[in-house]
């Protein structure tokens, strides 16, 4: 996981052959990382002890865990629990990316209509709560004759909402690539699509991935809103099981821990992508 030390940022540095000072810096880096993991371990243990002190019914958690994780199908044969949460998130991610790319192109375009459509959409979906959007799509649209399934409504709401944020992230990443890069590429007579694909996109992606990763983690958690439409995802199941036998603490903590593990998995993927697109950039960070 990328844990940034305060005040340490990635910069273009000139790594000459390793000096004694840099070797010392490496040793310091290892000590820093070790202490980070130790502190995490301590905090995690403290959290565990605190829960242990609550005398929770862990056997009930064990009994319901396969359902929460989605290892068993719902009575209607559809997937449920964490599996459904992941499915909703990944599908929404895909459509959000698609919408965001088109919107970012519109925002970067010189065409006034494309620019206006893109800014209008981004403003509308960033300026209204996701919950209200979910309810309008699922509850209000049927009133005018548009009836969408729970899954479809959820995907549409999440994709459109996150697409609006993601479009801004993509736009700012593209704008942050220095103008000299485009100029050098044009001076080499490179065709436009080669400039976009080989020169601008890889450099923009490096800047886009961290905030986009944060958006996707946030989407994972916001996917719990689709429970409002009766989809049996993780949050919905946890609440139902809790209500049935009054095991609120057990079920909600179990759900929280599953969400947390999923988020960590997403962050690990993000970290790998960051490394992949960080080639050529020498990090002054300690990790």
């Amino acid at each position, binding site marked *: 996981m990328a844990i940034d030390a305060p005040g340490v940022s990635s910069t*273009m*540095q*000139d*790594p000459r052959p390793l000096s004694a000072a840099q070797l010392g810096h490496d040793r310091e880096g290892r000590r820093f990382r070790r202490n980070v993991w130790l502190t995490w371990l301590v905090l995690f243990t403290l959290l565990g002890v605190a829960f242990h002190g609550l005398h929770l019914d862990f056997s009930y958690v064990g009994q319901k865990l396969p359902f929460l994780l989605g290892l068993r199908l719902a009575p209607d044969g559809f997937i449920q629990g964490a599996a459904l949460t992941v499915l909703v998130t990944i599908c929404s991610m895909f459509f959000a990316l698609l919408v965001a790319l088109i919107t970012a192109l519109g925002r970067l375009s010189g065409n006034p209509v494309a620019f206006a459509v893109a800014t209008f959409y981004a403003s509308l979906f960033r300026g209204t709560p996701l919950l209200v959007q979910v309810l309008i799509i699922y509850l209000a649209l049927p009133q005018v004759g548009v009836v969408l399934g729970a899954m479809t409504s959820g995907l549409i709401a999440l994709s459109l909402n996150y697409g609006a944020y993601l479009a801004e992230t993509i736009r700012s990443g593209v704008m942050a690539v*220095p103008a*000299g*890069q485009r*100029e*050098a*590429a*044009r*001076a*080499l*007579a*490179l*065709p436009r699509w*080669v400039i976009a694909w*080989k*020169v601008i996109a*890889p*450099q923009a992606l*490096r800047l886009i991935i961290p905030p986009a990763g944060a958006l996707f983690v946030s989407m994972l958690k916001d996917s719990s809103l689709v429970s409002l439409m009766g989809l049996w995802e993780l949050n919905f199941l946890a609440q139902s099981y809790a209500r049935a036998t009054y095991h609120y603490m057990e079920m909600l903590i179990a759900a929280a821990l599953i969400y947390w593990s999923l988020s960590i998995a997403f962050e690990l993927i993000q970290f790998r992508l960051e490394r992949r*697109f960080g*080639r*050529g*950039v*020498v990090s002054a960070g300690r990790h």
Partner: protein
Amino acid sequence: MPQIPAATPSSAPAGRSLLTVERLSKWYGAVQVLRDVSLEVAAHERVVICGPSGSGKSSLLRCLNGLEPHQAGRIIVDGTELTGSASALGAVRREIGMVFQSFNLFPHMTALDNCTLAPIWVRKMPPADAQELARSYLARVRLASHAHKYPGQLSGGEQQRVAIARALCMSPKIMLFDEPTSALDPEMTQEVLEIILGLADTGMTMICVTHEMGFARRAADRIVFMDQGALVAQGTPGQMFDSPQSERLKAFLSQVPQGN
């Protein structure tokens, strides 16, 4: 790489005209940065453009390969007139190499990949051939052993030499240098100037904007002096530096270090 016949040092600008600039004018909004500039550059000629900052030197250079549009006048590169059309732009840029003050190497590619990108995508060269070509030019700028490194791992002087190799890989007919050493400290300035001087000796046609007067004297067939967007005076380094006629040139020369 094609062998270019070497021009004899200090020979008079001979050969056919490779670049013609006719009464070129350019505005940024209401500000006129180029005023009726006319310039003729022959094949194998080495031209150095000097002048105070804001005199339009870089703007002129950037118009020559269409990085900036011009509003009046004509630019003709090896028979192709630079109009707004994409095909003319492409044709001209394929024949003109450019080296920038801030290097502008692609930071996510190795030195070798920086050099092979345009030969592969513009010249449609097979990657293996492009790499062979790139390695030969990297060797020529004395960076053969740095081919696998990323720009961030190279010093400023080394980056600029990679940028020169990258431009040469397109086998340009004309090389433009836009203050190639202004971002470098003196030590690195020398290593880059040596490379450019070596290139001049091969007969490469080049136009160089620089404040390095010692270099200008050694490398140039002709010095062009610009002030306030206009071409004020031009002549051989001897005429320009030793017996300047223009008052503005005299004033400029008294303010810049003459170098060795």
